Every structure is written in structure tokens, then in C-alpha cells.
């Protein structure tokens, strides 16, 4: 699945010319938006960011910003950065990375100040924002890591949604029957692997188009879990749905670390799935980019023929990676029913598998990038639900669109260059 046009030599020349102007134009547009929204139409009053909770060990004072003044300063910085990008494009081919990065950070902060300054209450608890975002971010990270494992080895995984849903369902069922959350967790990994097995068997052995298999598997899992939910989970014994009352995984706060403002509740007051996520992100990054194992996988994903020539079994590597991806996504699915909510409900993943796909692309097929993208999308999602209660200058639906819109910008080359592994989506037939 090459995302930026796969080498088209005849058009290469004008593509370079297009790319060099794309960034300044985009930054210019956003700077203009900032001037109009944040400076000219900026809300009067102050935006308060509450950092510490009352029972925290360390108290950090609230951050109070005058919304309009901050908007004016921020938009001036943004305009300056856009001009800098324009000058760079004029002189050389590429815009420096720090310009776009600073631009993005300043824009996001200014946007937050503008939104919060425009609400009725004019304040937000950052702990609630970030810790609540983890409810969305955790399954997103697992889903996108599943995608990383599959796509790095050259198999497109559209079935992330199905893997998450299968994990959520199986975790709820097994944890209810055995009254053991860890059994549920294990079963969820197995369920994710079963979905992966179908994906691998059909796309590697039978060389069926991977996107078709992925799409169909999502429908299959949705139908299957829906059917079994109606048939099994709704059966009540003495008025209790005994097959849909999973035992939950306990939160395991790490002493001391969990007291750090914002980061503590976000990262160090989690269930075992949450800690596993943190380890997995780093381990996968290290494994993929710093070990022989990762080099082989990337070789299979970029140039399977070359990998085959040096003796790597391409299809076995892909098979194993897809299976591992299924286990990872299955555990992510277990997070829904063993941590986030009390029981399984029909289609409860609600398209999060596709946001995970978006995070994977926005994170450039890199575990850490994908995790950060998942965090961004999680915060945006949680901000949307917080703001729907607070009344805002912009509609929550636009925040809901954010992950998808950013992904489209990323794949069309407006935001950096997002390129899939070269052989992703292409079956490998020896000979």
C-alpha cells in the first residue's frame, strides 16, 4: 500500500516542485485561521488549566492565561513561522523540521486556550483530559501496534477493528465463566490470533487481496460476536447475565511515580494492560529498528524478493508477524471489557480499529510515532466528550473529524511524508 505515489519517474520532476511549496501554503492557511480565530475573534476572559488535583502530593498552581492576549501573541508567532517556511522554500528545497514542529505545537496550545476561553466555565482539568484520554488511547495503541507488526512485514491489516472486537468479546466471556481476569486476557489474545490466522491464511496462502480479507473479516467478527452476544450473553440466570459479567483487572498504582502531576494518573495508575502497552511500544520500536529480527521483518516488508534471496522465509515471517499482531490487538480488545467498561455490548469498538489504522499511518509505521498519534487522537476524542458538556465555540463533531482529516493530510503528503513499507499489500509468490 504505497501511500505517496510509487516511483513514477516521468512525474518525479514536477512532484519535487509541488512538495517544496506545499508546506508553506499549508502553514500560511493555518496561520491565517489562527489570526482570524484566536486573535480577531478571540474570546475575552481567561482560560484556566487546572494541573494538580486536591489530593496530589505536589501541588502545582493553576495555569491561567488571558485568552485574547495569548491568541494575539500565538498567532503572531504562527505568522512568523509561516513566513520563515516560505523563505526556506524560496532558498532551498525543504522546510526545516523545527519550523513545522513548533508551528504544530503553538497552534495546538493556542487552539486549546481559545476553546477553553470560549466555554462557559473557562477552565479544564488537565488530569481529567489526559487520564480520560487513556481510555481511548490504550486500545488505539494496541490496535496500531498490531498494524505496525503486520504492515512492516508486508501485510495490510484492515481487520484491526475485528481483532479488537474479538478480543473484547472473548475477554468478557472467558473472564465471566472462569471468574479470572487473566484467563480472559489470555483468551482475548488467542481470539485476536484466530482473526489473524484467517487474515494470514487467506492473504498469504490463498493470495486473496489483503484489503478484501480485512474488510470481510471485520463484518464476520461483528456478525459473529453480535450473534453470540444475543444467543449466549443475554441468557440470564436469576436475572443476572452470567456470561457477561467479567471480572476486572485491578489498577496497580506505582508508588511515588503515580503522584507526579498529570503524568502520574495518566501512565502510572493503570492496569497491567496499560503497563504492558508502555513496555510493548518501546520494545517494538527497539526490536524493529535495532535488532536483526526487526531488520529481517523490514526487509520482508520493503523488498521481499531481496529478503528471499538472502534466505529469509518471506511468507513464514509474514505469517508469524500477522499472528503476533493479532495477539497484540486481542489484548487491546480485552482492555474494553476488562478495564474500561463493565461488560460487552454489540459493536462496542465503534470504529476505533479504523482510528488505530489512522494512528498507524499518522505515526509513519513507527511504534513510537503510532503511540503518540494514538495519544493525540485519544486526547481529541476525550476533549470532544468533555466539551460536549461545557458548551464550546466549535462543535465537538469537528474534533471528532480531526484524526481522520489529519490522516488524509498525512497520506496526501501535506503533513510530512508518510510512506508505507514498499511491499505492504502485495502478496509474495516465490519464483
Amino acid at each position, binding site marked *: *500500500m504505497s501511500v505517496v505515489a510509487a516511483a*513514477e519517474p516521468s512525474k518525479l520532476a514536477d512532484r519535487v516542485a509541488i512538495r517544496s511549496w506545499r508546506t508553506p501554503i499549508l502553514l500560511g492557511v493555518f496561520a491565517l485561521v489562527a489570526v482570524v480565530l484566536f486573535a480577531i475573534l478571540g474570546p475575552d476572559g481567561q482560560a484556566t488549566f487546572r494541573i494538580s488535583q486536591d489530593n496530589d502530593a505536589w501541588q502545582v498552581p493553576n495555569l491561567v492565561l488571558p485568552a485574547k492576549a495569548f491568541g494575539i501573541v500565538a498567532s503572531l508567532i504562527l505568522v512568523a513561522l509561516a513566513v520563515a517556511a516560505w523563505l526556506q522554500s524560496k532558498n532551498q528545497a525543504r522546510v526545516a523540521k523545527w519550523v513545522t514542529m513548533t508551528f504544530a505545537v503553538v497552534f495546538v496550545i493556542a487552539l486549546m486556550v481559545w476553546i477553553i476561553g470560549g466555554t462557559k466555565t473557562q477552565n479544564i482539568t488537565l488530569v481529567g483530559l489526559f487520564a480520560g484520554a487513556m481510555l481511548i488511547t490504550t486500545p488505539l495503541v494496541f490496535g496500531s501496534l498490531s498494524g505496525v507488526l503486520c504492515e512492516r512485514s508486508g501485510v495490510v491489516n484492515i481487520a484491526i477493528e475485528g481483532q479488537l472486537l474479538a478480543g473484547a468479546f472473548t475477554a468478557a466471556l472467558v473472564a465471566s465463566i472462569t471468574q479470572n481476569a487473566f484467563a480472559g486476557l489470555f483468551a482475548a489474545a488467542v481470539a485476536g490470533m484466530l482473526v489473524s490466522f484467517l487474515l494470514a491464511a*487467506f492473504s498469504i496462502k490463498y493470495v*486473496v*487481496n489483503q484489503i478484501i480479507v480485512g474488510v470481510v473479516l471485520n463484518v464476520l467478527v461483528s456478525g459473529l460476536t453480535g450473534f453470540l452476544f444475543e444467543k449466549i450473553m443475554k441468557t440470564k440466570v436469576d436475572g443476572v447475565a452470567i456470561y457477561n459479567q467479567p471480572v476486572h483487572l485491578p489498577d496497580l498504582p506505582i508508588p511515588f511515580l503515580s503522584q507526579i502531576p498529570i503524568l502520574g494518573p495518566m501512565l502510572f495508575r493503570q492496569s497491567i494492560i496499560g503497563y504492558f502497552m508502555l513496555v510493548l511500544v518501546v520494545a517494538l520500536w527497539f526490536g524493529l529498528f535495532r535488532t536483526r529480527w526487526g531488520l529481517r521483518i523490514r526487509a520482508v516488508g520493503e523488498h521481499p524478493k531481496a529478503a528471499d534471496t538472502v534466505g529469509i522465509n518471506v511468507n513464514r515471517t509474514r505469517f508469524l508477524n500477522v499472528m503476533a499482531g493479532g495477539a497484540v490487538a486481542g489484548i487491546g480488545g480485552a482492555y474494553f471489557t476488562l478495564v474500561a467498561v463493565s461488560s460487552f455490548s454489540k459493536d462496542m469498538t465503534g470504529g476505533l480499529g479504523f482510528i488505530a489504522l489512522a494512528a498507524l499511518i499518522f505515526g509513519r509505521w513507527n511504534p513510537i510515532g503510532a503511540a503518540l498519534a494514538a495519544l493525540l487522537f485519544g486526547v481529541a476524542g476525550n476533549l470532544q466528550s468533555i466539551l460536549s458538556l461545557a458548551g464550546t465555540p466549535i*462543535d465537538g463533531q*469537528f474534533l471528532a473529524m480531526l484524526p481522520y482529516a489529519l*490522516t*488524509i493530510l498525512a*497520506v496526501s503528503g501535506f503533513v510530512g511524508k508518510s510512506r508505507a513499507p514498499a511491499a505492504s499489500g502485495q502478496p509474495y509468490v516465490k519464483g
Partner: protein
Amino acid sequence: MSETPSIPAPTPAPTPAPTPDSKDVKDAEGTRVIREIMSGNAIISVLAVLVALVIGGILIAITDPRVTAASGYFFADPGATFSAIWASVSEAYGALWRGATYDPTARTWQGQLGIFETLTFATPLILAGLAVTLAFRAGLFNIGAQGQIIMGATFAGVVGFQMHLPPVIHLLAVILAGAIGGAIWAGIAGFLKARTGAHEVIVTIMLNYIAVSFVLYLLKNQLKAPGSTNPISPQMDANAMLPLLLGPNFRVNAGLILAILAVIAVAWLLNRSTLGFEYRAIGANPKAARTAGMIVSRGYITVMLISGALAGLAGVTQIAGTEKSLDSEIAGSIGFDAITVALLGRSKPWGTFFAALLFGAFKAGGTSMAVNADVSIDIVAVVQSLIVLFIAAPPLIRSMFRIKAVRPEGAKA
């Protein structure tokens, strides 16, 4: 899947290059059909449906409490288990079949004629299935039918309930608006694919979700029905509705005629027109098409525009045919079913038509099965997806039934 979309149709059937002589074309078509039946492709489709139904039956049986009860004394009385299985499965599939065709046990005479519900459900599936089929043939994977249906229905709705025009003109305006809405939404993906190489699968998936959010936003603000607390639009004008074909007792509407016309048009476009030839050439090998002087990027854009327009029409048949007002659920699962319909129809216009009829029957029958046999309609999704999986992997079915593969000459493994 960058530049090698031999993937679209599950079988990379080598499309015979159309020659200017129409008689030759006809002959080629004729022999191709015979060859296809001989090579077992048609048999495989039938077997795929059968195997999927059998697996669905197994699921129905093992989750039926009567079967579980009878299997408790299986060794004492094995017959009881088998008769319980038979009762359970035949009850479910019987209700499915009656609901989709003719049900003498229904209370009202309208309720007996489920066949018209089948046609009603099939209507948007035909149009959206055609949208996916057409893009497939040009080597593009349009997963965005869902979003295009939503945008088509939204555009059609705006014209349908905010403008007040005389009869006929109003309906035509609604249809046109729906087609434009879908075309714009798919056109974004086509444009980005042509100009930046952005993969259409990713872009269309993302556009699906953007469409839902966009419509929810409109329904909460500009398009909200006055006095309503739910995000739902006002009802369409009577002039803007597609006329019902069989009177007020049945939901089947003129959208079906629109859909059949669309099948004919797409069949002509693909098999007879220069544009269709270009699309197929691009789908078979974009590099060769470029070498032959075709403008591939323009092909990507136009095929997505037409594809989106077809999906938009599916949105029209939803809002102006059955639903009457716009809500965020207007597209149901049609956009995703359309993908499976196109696959089952082997990316051919008439194949898509019959596949849509089958899936429409599943939908109509599934409702009756849920009510009369207490089997959740979700089993239909299971059966549908299994059908597509089996059809997409002919070697699997072949090995299951030991059918010898007779490959059409010239086709590579």
C-alpha cells in the same frame, strides 16, 4: 497494492480486448460465459453460498438451547439430538426463506409478500454495489461507499426538504443533488489519488467517518427538524419522493427502476464505451495504459466521480425511497455490504445486480428470522462474509470439493 491492481476481481479473468467488430465481441462474450461455467467459477459461487449456509446452520444449532438439552442424553437417544438440530436449523432458514419470498403464515397479506421487501432492500445495494464494482475495474478500491451514500442522501435531503419545487422537477433535482453529493465525496479520494498518490483505501475510510461527523453536525444545527430534540431532519416534500411502484402497501419504489437503469448504463460503460475500455486498461495495468497514451490520473478522477455518483444515488433511494428524513444512520450498513455485493458479483454489473438481490433477500429474510425463529439477524452478516471469503479464495472451495481447476487459457496462476 500500489500499481498492480490485478486484485479487483477475485479471479483475474483476462478481459478480452474489445475489437471494433461488435459481432466478435459478442462471440467472445458467449464463449467466455461458457468457459466460466466449465471452469467451475459459477459452481464455486453456488458452493460458496452453500458452505456458508451450512456453517451458519451449525452456529444456529449449537447455540439453540433445545439442541444443547437433547445433546445431554446424546448416547441414550442420538435421534433426539439430530431432530433437535433439524428443527432448529430448518425453523431458522425456513423463516429466512419465507421472509424473503412468500410467507403464507403471515398475518396480513402485505406481510406475506416478502419478495417486495427483498426488492426494496436490494435497491440501494445494487447502486452502491455498482459504485464499488466500477471503481474495482479501474483498479481502485472504493471502501467509501458508506460516506458517499451519506453525502448523497444529505445533498438529496437538502434539496428535498428545504426547496419546494413542482412535481417531477423536484424529484429530478433530488436525484441530481444526490449524485453530485456522492460524486464530490468520492472525487476527493480520486483527486488525491491522482495528484498526490494518496491511497484511496485510506482516504475513503477516513472520509466515511468525516461524513458521519459532518452530517451529525448539520443535523444538530442547520438541518435539524424544528421542534425535534433528536438529530433528525424534517421530512422530504411529497414531490421529492420516489413514487411507490405497488401502492402504499409496499415500500418498493421507483428507485428500483433507477437501479436497473444504472446496471444497464454501467454495463454499457464498461463493455462498450471508450471510457470503460480506458478504465479497464488502467485497472489491468496502469503503466501500460500510460504508455498507450491514456491519462491515468484523469481516469482515476473520473471513475471515482462516477462511482461516487452511483453511491450517491443509493443515498437518494434511501432518503427519497424509504427513510423520508435524514439521520446519521441513513446509510445503515449498505456501504459495507456493497463491497461484499461487488465481490460476490465478481465485479460485473449484472453479477452485482444478482448479488444485491441475494443480499436484499438475506436482509428481508433476516428480519423475519429474528422475529419468527428467534435467531439474531447478525447470523446474516456471518453468512454473507463467509460467502465472500470462500468466493475470494477459489482454491479453498476447490480443495474442499475436489473440483479440478480448469484455467482459462492465458491466465497466470
